[in-house]
């Protein structure tokens, strides 16, 4: 019963999001048939009127908006996301392939970034105002301020052009993963170091820690148990959403490093007005975020007993 409510809510969200996406793209200027034809036959101005007419009829772009949306949605609920307007490849296949390129990069960046952020944030919080604290804040500010595309280009300049030890662009091998993952990891490190630092300071100031000290609990145990748990509880929902954000938001990085992942695929689909791919991408995003939210809920409830009752209401 409860699962049915959640699933129908998810379905409505996906339908609304895709309807809105289609409406916005429909309202945008320009002829979609011309964009698709141009993308198919290689460049602006190469398609003549006859070709454009063929494309228009084939994709049903001469039909009313709602009829086209109903066609797409009807097929989508049965799991059929259609074919790319440009390459005629099934959309599900395009998304799967792109996901397989993006996921390792996002995961590597996330793990690397957190591996730096956790010790830095903890050390900074334990001695506020100390050398480590100030150094960490400076490093985090620098990392947050450096634009990823600039950092990516700088790394390419050093490692691929100057020293020639890593490939500058493309995907496929572990070596291809290093530069984009490091670029993203700097952003992860920068934003999470400061979050962990402030959550830690809050947890360290909790009044019950003194009561624990008086009951004989050691400082080590206070840190590893009574401070770590609330910090983990506060971070859990942010982390899952950030992980999804990395999967979706790696557009700039994928463009800089020419990696055919989700971000680059989406940008190309937008450029070509490839509606089937765009809608498929939006539906997939909503699903990912819903999954992340559900995972965050479960984790929060495991980490904080007070939420177990609160979230059931």
């Amino acid at each position: 019963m409860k699962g049915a409510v959640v699933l129908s809510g998810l379905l409505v969200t996906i339908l609304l999001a895709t309807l809105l996406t289609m409406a916005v793209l429909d309202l945008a200027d320009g002829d979609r048939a011309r964009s698709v034809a141009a993308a198919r036959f290689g460049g602006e101005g190469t398609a003549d009127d006859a070709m454009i007419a063929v494309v228009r009829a084939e994709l049903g772009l001469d039909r009313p908006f709602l009829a086209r949306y109903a066609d797409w949605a009807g097929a989508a609920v049965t799991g059929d996301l259609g074919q790319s307007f440009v390459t005629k490849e099934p959309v599900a296949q395009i998304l799967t392939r792109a996901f397989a390129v993006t996921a390792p990069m996002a995961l590597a960046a996330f793990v690397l970034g957190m591996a730096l952020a956790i010790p830095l944030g903890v050390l900074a919080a334990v001695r506020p105002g100390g050398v480590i604290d100030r150094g960490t804040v400076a490093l985090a500010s620098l990392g947050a301020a450096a634009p990823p595309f600039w950092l990516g280009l700088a790394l390419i300049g050093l490692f691929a052009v100057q020293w020639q030890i890593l490939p500058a662009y493309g995907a496929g091998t572990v070596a291809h993963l290093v530069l984009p993952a490091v670029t993203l990891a700097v952003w992860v490190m920068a934003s999470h170091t400061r979050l962990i630092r402030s959550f830690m300071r809050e947890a360290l100031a909790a009044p019950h820690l003194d009561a624990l000290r008086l009951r004989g609990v050691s400082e080590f145990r206070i840190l590893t148990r009574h401070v770590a748990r609330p910090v983990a509880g506060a971070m859990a929902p942010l982390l899952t959403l950030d992980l999804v954000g990395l999967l979706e938001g790696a557009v700039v990085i994928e463009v800089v490093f020419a990696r055919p992942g989700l971000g680059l695929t989406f940008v190309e689909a937008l450029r070509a007005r490839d509606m089937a791919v765009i809608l498929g991408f939006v539906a997939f995003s909503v699903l990912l975020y819903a999954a992340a939210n559900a995972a965050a809920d479960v984790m929060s409830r495991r980490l904080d007993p007070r939420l177990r009752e609160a979230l059931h209401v």
Partner: protein
Amino acid sequence: MSDPILKVQSLSAQIGDTPVLQEADLIIRPGECVALVGPSGAGKTSLLRMALGLDRPARRVAGRRFLLGQDIDGLRPRALRMLRAGAVGFTPQNPAAGLDPLDRLSLVWLHTAQARGGDTGPAARAAALAAVGLPDCGDAFPHQWSRGMLQRFLIALTRLGDPALTVLDEPTSALDPVIAAQVMQQEAARAAALGTALLIVTHNAALAEGIATRVVRMEGGRVIGDRVARPGVARRALRCASCPDEPEDRVLDVSGLAVRRGASMALSDIALHVNEGEALVVLGESGAGKTTLLRALAGMVPFTAAQSRIAPCALVLQDPMAAICPAHDVVTAVSEPLLAQGMPRRKAFDQAAEATAEAGLPATLLSRLPHQLSLGQAQRVCIARALVARPRLVLLDEPLSALDPDAGAGIAALLGRLRARHRLALLIVTHDLGFARAIADRVAVLRAGRVVEQASADDFFAAPASDYGRALVNAGRRLGALEAAA
């Protein structure tokens, strides 16, 4: 004379560059029960923390401190931790500050029993909790218990392994008077019987004089007095001379009032009235439905009633700081009810300034933010906000419980003045029997969601009719909050 359990010699301490303790002395011997009293900011908490070696945020500048004869400044951190865990049982003022919200109560119990060498078995635990009137904690987490229950849990926890020194910081703030008297007498008896000692930090003068053997008074970071306790302190009367009970003068008249909570009833068959200018005090144990009653009368909780006539009224909540938006300055906070009615800003601010002055706050405070106020000042802001729309009835939930005795006496006097000047009616929920005796014209006793007794204050305090009323009045006499029976 036996060796002291705790000895502090001319201890001075600072937070940053601000002195918080100046040459403070404190000696506690076996079998003693010492009350540490003084207004907020007197340094009571600082002395307590420093005496036990909690050197943050304050740090020691000069002086020495001994626990069980050992100089704690000569101990390694681990040795101090072990000594303290075995020798000291501590219950903080706010029970939430005594427990990690993520730990089950049973786990806290187990760890403490292990650290102090007490009995770790579940039967011993159930017996120890029953001694303070609690059920066994089972698998419960702290948030599943009320404040009063957690405070009793912590007091039972301090008894584990019979530590040489038990420290109770404001032990009765979350307890109703019957439980408070019972628990405090147990504590005093234990100290005397076991040769252990009790240190109570309190705002409650009646508790200090009634339970303690010695009263140490602090002010401005110094110990300014150390004397033998004097049970039975007199209280000043705040009541109005006479309030005739005429139906047309009633500002509140309800009967058959009921509030449903889930499948059970939080309140049922409540019949109450309050006359113009009259103070009705509602007494009752934790969980009796006192706060729910106020919230229902203020329209915050839906209720059913056979009859209900409620004049325009205002509610003053229990925690003054939590009741003011931290981002609003005093004048904005006080003018809120007027702004909500659509009154122009300038006019609302003028009336708010007037109400604030009437609540006894200087005009210089009007632009302050809540965190820049003392608790007593914050309570006055809440009262000013309740008055600003000129209600005929003010509902107050524990108006003194957050305040030190000086600030509390000020608020009590203010309430007495306001009712005399505006013929304002008051409906007050309180655990403070001294305050109740001083201000009440009539008393109603609430128990398990029902009114079990309603009488004039003089009749009630002379000869309460209900069992719970008798228990309350007896507890008040034992604690010294009420004069002994004639």
